């Protein structure tokens, strides 16, 4: 995994006054499943289109397999792109779709036939070569789009939210298909998505993007437990986020006054006394006990919902006007204390699992907009 397949170096791309990609650099090791995760408008698709050759960078360099490809058109690059809407050729059969790229390489008919057969087997579509692509199911169409690219043996396979159009159950299934396929063929994948569950399930490395910049590149679990920025902490998972003011500092931790509650949190960045910060605690990590206790945070259950995987509980902690809304998720397999709306409970979490970042109001807006579906 030490060889580098794709290298992006200080790349910037503007559309008019809008900076879509802002001085981005990263490397993708050979054979990696690399995801670029970000909200819509974060520049992730533009970045992918520059790697595939549909857009050219304004400045900076893009290397593929060690060579600069900045202004090379897509038909001359050893990358292939799986489009969001798949973009299968609707007038052709499955085999002809797959053969389109091979024909451009002036291979003999036999060679083309052999390669098509082989890749059809690889994606589990054996025997469907003569079928028209419009006659296929959603999952099959997906696999034709993959086969059409894989048959050309690209250095890097690029995927632009390819599961976006599928429905929920099929998407769950295709995640595993994709991950297994990548493990089998060993091609480097760069996968763009706004769906964190896709990125986290499939990738070796995830780059979180926001407003044209990369905020953090980490393996999936680290994004969860060691977010490096406010945005990552806020964007990944359905995190608790409480705003407060720093009262005092210790070595790695700070004391923060949230409403009239005082909390201790790890410092995620340089913080001074008096700063406005947000504290993040994962809802999954909070334990909930019935009744009040002296050590924990006491509160009242406001909402109690079961969604098939988790019990989602909303607790109002503290008293008076400055009550704190705490989201708690208890997985379905665990024993649930006998509580109802209005029950008194006490909450606690392990030391070091609360983390503080300086408040960033504008990011809040990005995420709110996402929730409102403005882009949908």
């Amino acid at each position, binding site marked *: 995994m030490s060889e580098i397949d794709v290298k992006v170096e200080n790349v910037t791309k503007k559309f008019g006054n809008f900076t879509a990609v802002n001085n981005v650099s990263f490397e993708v090791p050979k054979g990696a499943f690399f995801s670029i995760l970000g909200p819509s408008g974060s520049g992730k698709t533009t970045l992918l289109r520059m790697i595939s050759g549909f857009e050219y960078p304004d400045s900076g360099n893009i290397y593929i397999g060690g060579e600069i490809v900045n202004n090379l058109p897509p*038909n001359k690059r050893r*990358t292939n*792109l799986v489009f969001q*809407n798949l973009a*299968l*050729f609707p007038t052709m059969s499955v085999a002809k779709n797959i053969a*389109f790229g091979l024909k451009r390489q002036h291979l003999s008919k036999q060679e083309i036939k052999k390669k098509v057969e082989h890749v059809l087997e690889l994606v589990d579509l054996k025997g469907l070569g003569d079928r028209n692509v419009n006659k296929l199911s959603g999952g099959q169409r997906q696999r034709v789009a993959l086969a059409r690219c894989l048959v050309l043996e690209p250095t890097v396979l690029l995927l632009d939210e390819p599961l976006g159009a599928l429905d929920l159950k099929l998407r769950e299934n295709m995640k595993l298909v994709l991950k297994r396929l990548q493990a089998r063929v060993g091609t480097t994948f760069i996968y763009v998505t706004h769906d964190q569950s896709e990125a986290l399930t499939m990738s070796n490395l995830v780059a979180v993007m926001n407003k044209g910049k990369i905020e953090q590149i980490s393996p999936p679990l680290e994004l969860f437990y060691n977010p490096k920025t406010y945005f990552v902490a806020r964007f990944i998972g359905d995190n608790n986020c409480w705003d407060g003011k720093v009262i005092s500092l210790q070595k790695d931790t700070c004391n923060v006054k949230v409403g009239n509650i005082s909390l201790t949190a790890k410092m995620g960045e340089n913080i001074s006394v008096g700063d406005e910060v947000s504290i993040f605690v994962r809802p999954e990590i909070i334990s909930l006990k019935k009744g009040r206790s002296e050590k924990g945070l006491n509160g009242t259950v406001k909402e109690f919902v079961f969604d098939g995987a988790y019990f989602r509980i909303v607790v109002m902690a503290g008293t008076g006007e400055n009550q704190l809304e705490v989201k708690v998720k208890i997985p379905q397999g665990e024993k649930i204390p006998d509580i109802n709306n209005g029950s008194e409970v006490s909450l606690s979490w392990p030391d070091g699992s609360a983390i503080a970042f300086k408040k960033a109001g504008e990011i809040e807006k990005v995420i709110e907009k996402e929730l409102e579906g403005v882009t949908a």
Partner: protein
Amino acid sequence: MKSNKRILRIGLISLLLPFAVWIGFLVVIPHIELLRLSFISHRGNNFTLANYANFFTNALYRNTYIRSAVFSIIVTFITLVISLPMALFITKIAGPKAQGILMLAVILPFWISELIQAFAWMIMLRETGVLSYLLQLLGIIHHNVEFLYNDAAIMVGLVYTSMLFMVIPLVSTLSTMEDSIIEAAYDLGGNFWNTLFEVIIPYSAPGITTGSIMVFMLSLGNYISVTLLGGKNSLWFTEQIYNQFILRFNWNQGAAFGILLLILSSLIVWIGIKISGQEIEEVLR
């Protein structure tokens, strides 16, 4: 599960019924009468095949018939070759503003009565017209030349009047093609010509068929542009029909010619659809 039916049925039937009768009356009866008349002799009221026999024995009629068909096919082909890049440009390259202007340029001939168009062309192509003048300026010709009243003038006129009917079906077909399909062809290693012949043209097949049928029909059935630009001896079959009806008052002979033209156009369209491998139902959509 068209449950709209129930909602709209009562209201619509009350509106549609008289019109349905009227349409049936309008569409069917006049053409049955045309057919009946074509089998009746001009003088006298008896059944005869003479009106059709006249066509097969007279070389002028036969030649005009074939000439109209061949020319219309050529016009259709020229119109297609011009319209496809235009439609491609309008749907896939032009921004919204340029799109509007281009569509306007295509629709303009429609805005202006065919009659006025034909006259404008006559002004342009006549011996003392603009074309003759310009070519003399450029030193290509050295005295006034008449560009009117020949086959090329007819063709130019026909292509011009019917282009709209080719561009619109092509634009509507191509605008349903997602841009990413072209990008995919490019990404997989294709160049412009690969993409055009293997991806874009197969995709636009329904539009090409619809457009070609319309242009062919309009050309074959054209009277005004053909007679004005081609002159009195343009040798177009519609002219023969007009002559029978209006100049010779031989409605029976004219009716027979009308039926023959109908057969010709239906036949060629049918062959065209068969060749393009499409279903008539698809073309109607």
